[in-house]
């Protein structure tokens, strides 16, 4: 139970970084931390105490195995996170070229 709670704290740390920081790179890093916490959560919900890794070798009996589905989901979310980070970092570089700064308070050509 406390593992889940700590995982949620990690989520909140990322959310704080994302909402309160002014530097664009810091905001993207906050996004990354949130992603880690969700990945962590996916692994946690598949975990069973004293289980074993869900990779099949020959002549092994299936007993008390960790739930494999969340791990497959976790792999997918890692890839999705990678492509989002790629795109957002690309945007950040272009914004730096156009505005000459990473500071979000100085990047205000639109009213919002």
């Amino acid at each position: 139970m406390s593992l889940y709670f700590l995982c949620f704290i990690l989520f909140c740390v990322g959310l704080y970084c994302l909402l309160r920081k002014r530097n664009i790179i810091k905001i993207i890093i906050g996004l990354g931390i949130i992603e880690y916490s969700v990945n962590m959560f996916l692994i946690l919900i598949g975990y069973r105490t004293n289980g074993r890794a869900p990779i099949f070798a020959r002549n092994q009996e299936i007993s008390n195995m960790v739930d494999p589905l969340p791990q497959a989901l976790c792999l997918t979310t890692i890839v999705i996170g990678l492509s989002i980070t790629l795109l957002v970092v690309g945007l950040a570089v272009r914004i730096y070229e156009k505005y000459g700064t990473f500071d979000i308070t100085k990047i205000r050509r639109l009213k919002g």
Partner: protein
Amino acid sequence: MILIFFVITPIAAAFLIGLAGRYVKNFSDSAANLTTVILFAASLYTLNLVNTCHILVYKIGGWLPPAGICVVADGLAVFMLVTVNLISLLVMIYSINYMNSYTEKWKFHALYMLMLVGMNGVIISGDLFNLYVFLELASISAYALVAFGTEASSLEAAFKYAIMGSIASLFILLGIALLYSYTSTLSMFDIAAVLAGKPRAFLINFVSVLFLAGFALKAALVPFHAWLPDAHSSAPTPVSATLSGVFIKTLGIYAMLRVFFSVIGATSNLLLVLMVLGLVSMIAGAFLAIAQNDMKRMFAYSSISQVGYIIIGLGCGSLIGIAGAAFHLFNHSIFKSLLFINSAAVESQTGSRNMDKLSGLAAKMPLTAVTSVMASLSAAGLPPLAGFWSKLIIIMALWISGHYIYALIAVLASILTLAYFLLMQRKIFFSEPNQELSGIKEAGFGFSLASIILASIIAVVGVAFPFLVNSIFVPFWNFLGV
């Protein structure tokens, strides 16, 4: 089997455009148009199929649901498929002319196809995690498409949209993970079955809050709307038309409807929250729209207001409310795409979107003027155009379920809508012509074709609605399956 076709065809088109678009002139235009025509035909065929056998299910790779993925189409899904593919077809038609002012337009077409994959996938997916994957696919393509012009403002808007959208997606993912931990299945039907067998836990309320925040961000309901006006006004107009016409509805409203009404189950508290969110968006969007002088920003705020109508219809929770919401969703995507096409025509001819600088275009661009008047009146809900009927159904649903004050406010917001659209029409089309704007003529063929088709849909659906309602709409809505 036909369902997986909606995902595979645009993927294949995107690959082809990516391979050959750079070398063959006009290949990307024709490939994208051909794909959307095929998809629209396929969606009509699916509509016909669903009319006879009510629900289509296809198991990918033959694996059964707890771990395998199903694609499902019921009445509502097919309705959304038809809307999405119709709008993307028309957007592709007019982007033939419009996208000529941009460099490397084959990249636009390839990314647009990927966005279409995402939207179709969200509609047909019967598996929660798969829904998330397609939602991300559509969102990532949309972030990139908003930045297609690579001006300073569009980059800024795309960044803002990307951050907000990613937070929304991560909220949704966390909700899905929690639901999986509670029910240990990902298929929507199985989750609904498991949840029906268990007492309602605290966890489900928490998950509802996560989903509500995520989908409200995607649908740009009012406290979460900050990204929408920027993204809509600085994206290329075909992208704005798609975003406003079908994108926020597929990713926000349709997905919300699926998750809340067919998976978790809507409680009275949730419906109340939806109604309040809808009411606030409806009013705030209308008031903000009056204050704008950029055409596309005004349409963006108007979208927020109209999405408020749809949400308030859903918030009734009754079948007639949901039916009205679905019908208004269709109408809104038609008239808002038409308005965006008109703004693109005006912009491509005069080079400006500022309403204070434009004047007296009705004599020079008669087709644009007439179609935009029709779209505005449909948006404001004047009989006998299509928008009137959907607003009438929503207000009737509000009245029947006893929300008299909400119904009254909905009528008032409709008058506000009429006010700002008439203001826009008077400024741009029906005022004394300005000397600077001489020598302007009607925009190209693609614009005219797309706007004529959209305007005739508005007129035909509006006029024929009383005759069609008993034969087509009532039986159709009866098995929406919500």
